[in-house]
């Protein structure tokens, strides 16, 4: 892979001679994590591998010629205690064709983002992007065939995602038929989406974005899911035994779920901005669901000395997968303060989970020059001692990213 990366770098000048638009960028993004050793969910290595340090090095390539679009990443991923991994990723590879009269079609792997919102986007029924990642890599699209029609103020899109797949175990391979209607009405963006799939059955929702004056923007969106998923520890939910011999974290499909977001953003001429957003995600845990998991974990910890440590640690490690969801709780509030003076972009974010008093503080600083972008961020998880975020096995995170536009 290293040879491929070096070869690709040397080949860049030749690629620029090709017809079409070709861009390339190089990025180096180390990330650091600090354990929360006070958490009942913290399990030391080797049961849960330590990843205090990791680094992502990407050579991003993008090519566009007419309707043909390709975006790929050559990645070297190094994690503490592990052999570096090399990946070749096809982020997007699609063809946009024109049928005339404002109609067109698309075949291939494409990123389709339909969401309304900043911290949470319920209407992203196809891309399902984790908006709370600290420094996410470029998005990878989904295989699809689509037909679109545009007029001056309306748009309609019909998409068949993951054609031919029958795998319904995850959202990422769930074959579906989805539609989006967009209309610009009196300066308001109106969105409506619907999706039919084997995993979620019917999902339908709508959203609006409205600007008021020159400084205020408001947005709202809601999505109904006929079926939605949650991953529970069956021991916690059933009140049965204390230790399981096999992974007790089971995905459960429930009926009639709701996802919703409501937000407002103010941006002043000075470049300062304030965003306030509240959202509800039925796929997050309720306060009582966390209490039951906390109680099970406490019971498991109380067996220290009475049961094999490997059994206790293994069970706690399984339970700690509950922290992998983007939204740990259903109810969330986000406050974001930012400033934009073109080159420097500082931001401070406070995420609060009002049901349990948890909080996540994130600071970011980005510098952008003609060809380079440098960004740095810190995230602190905490809040009330029994809140989900305060009990997360990770306490602090930091990242740095240097990105260079090569072409």
């Amino acid at each position: 892979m290293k040879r491929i990366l070096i070869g690709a770098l040397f080949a860049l000048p030749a690629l620029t001679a090709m017809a079409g638009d070709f861009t390339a960028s190089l990025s180096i993004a180390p990330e650091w994590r600090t354990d929360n050793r006070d958490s009942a969910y913290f399990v030391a290595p080797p049961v849960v591998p330590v990843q205090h340090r990791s680094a992502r090095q990407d050579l991003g390539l993008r090519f566009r010629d007419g309707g043909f679009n390709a975006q790929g990443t050559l990645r070297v991923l190094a994690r503490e205690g592990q052999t570096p991994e090399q990946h070749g990723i096809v982020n997007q590879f699609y063809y946009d064709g024109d049928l005339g009269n404002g109609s067109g079609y698309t075949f291939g792997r494409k990123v389709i983002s339909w969401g309304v919102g900043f911290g949470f986007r319920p209407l992203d029924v196809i891309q399902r992007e984790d908006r709370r990642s600290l420094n996410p890599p470029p998005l990878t699209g989904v295989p699809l065939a689509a037909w679109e029609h545009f007029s001056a103020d309306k748009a309609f899109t019909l998409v068949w995602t993951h054609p031919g797949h029958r795998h319904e175990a995850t959202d990422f391979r769930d074959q579906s038929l989805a539609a989006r209607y967009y209309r610009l009405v009196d300066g308001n963006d109106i969105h409506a989406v619907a999706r039919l799939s084997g995993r979620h059955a019917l999902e339908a929702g709508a959203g609006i974005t409205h600007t008021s004056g020159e400084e205020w923007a408001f947005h709202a969106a809601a999505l109904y899911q006929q079926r939605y998923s949650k991953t529970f520890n069956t021991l916690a939910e059933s009140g049965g035994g204390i230790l399981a011999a096999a992974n007790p974290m089971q995905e459960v499909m429930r009926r009639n779920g709701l996802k919703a977001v409501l937000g407002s953003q103010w941006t002043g001429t000075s470049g300062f901005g304030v965003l306030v957003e509240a959202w509800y995600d039925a796929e997050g845990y309720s306060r009582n669901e966390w209490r039951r998991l906390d109680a099970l974990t406490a019971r498991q910890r109380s067996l220290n000395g009475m049961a094999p440590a490997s059994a206790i640690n293994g069970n706690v490690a399984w339970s700690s997968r509950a922290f992998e969801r983007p939204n740990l709780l259903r109810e969330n509030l986000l406050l974001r303060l930012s400033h934009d003076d073109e080159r420097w972009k500082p931001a401070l974010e406070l995420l609060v989970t009002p049901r349990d008093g948890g909080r996540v503080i994130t600071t970011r600083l980005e510098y952008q020059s003609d060809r380079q972008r440098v960004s740095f961020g810190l995230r602190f998880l905490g809040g009330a001692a029994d809140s989900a975020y305060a009990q997360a096995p990770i306490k602090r995170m930091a990242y740095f990213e240097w990105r260079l536009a090569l072409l």
Partner: protein
Amino acid sequence: MFKNALALFASLLATLIALPALAADDIAALLKRADGYRLLEESVRIETLVESYRGDTLDKERRYTVYIKPGRRSLVLMKSPAEAGQKVLMLGDQFWLLMPDTQRPLRITATQKLLGDASTGDIANMTWSDDYDGKVVDEVDIKGRRCLHLDLSAARPGVTYARIGLYLDKASKLPIKADLYVHSGKRAKEAWYEAKTVDGQLRVMSMTLLDDIQAGRRTVVRYQSIVALAAPDEFFNPAALVRNTLAGW
């Protein structure tokens, strides 16, 4: 002595008579003539180079392709490596931004639409007659030219500048200079227009913006080509920003 006083009085009287006549003049027609030096056709594609200077040192360059259509519709495609793939759509008072990594048009407010030292309005708005109203307040000499001084106020929300002091060559109505005021009432920039004869027609081919807020900053907006071209209406649909490469346009 009496003759001189009489001549002065007559001159003052003529000016007093002439100014109301100018004020009563169709200001829209005056602005239309001035607009004609910047935008020869209603639907155009403009290749724009923006050079930002700190003192006399070139700080950065940005390239934009701008599509303009009647109805206050503009689409800006950013071409420089640091911004490649970004698009800004302006529909009247409404703005959308597309970042290439997100593939999702983002609704932005008027105050979020700044593009570095030159605002989107500086790049995408090539006319005054649709957005401003006002009157001729006096006549002044600028660089040896007799100029009409127009005091213009925004006739609609969402325009980049709330007030403009515009100076037009009295004879030709060619734009010479403008004082650009933001909504707080503060003068933000001073604009100087440079015209050249292209294809036998006098055209504004560059604009130099002197920043009042950040002293020593100078931005030169060069219109490298202006081609009459009417891109299809659906290209100006916010939902179509992701799809449209405008290849061939």
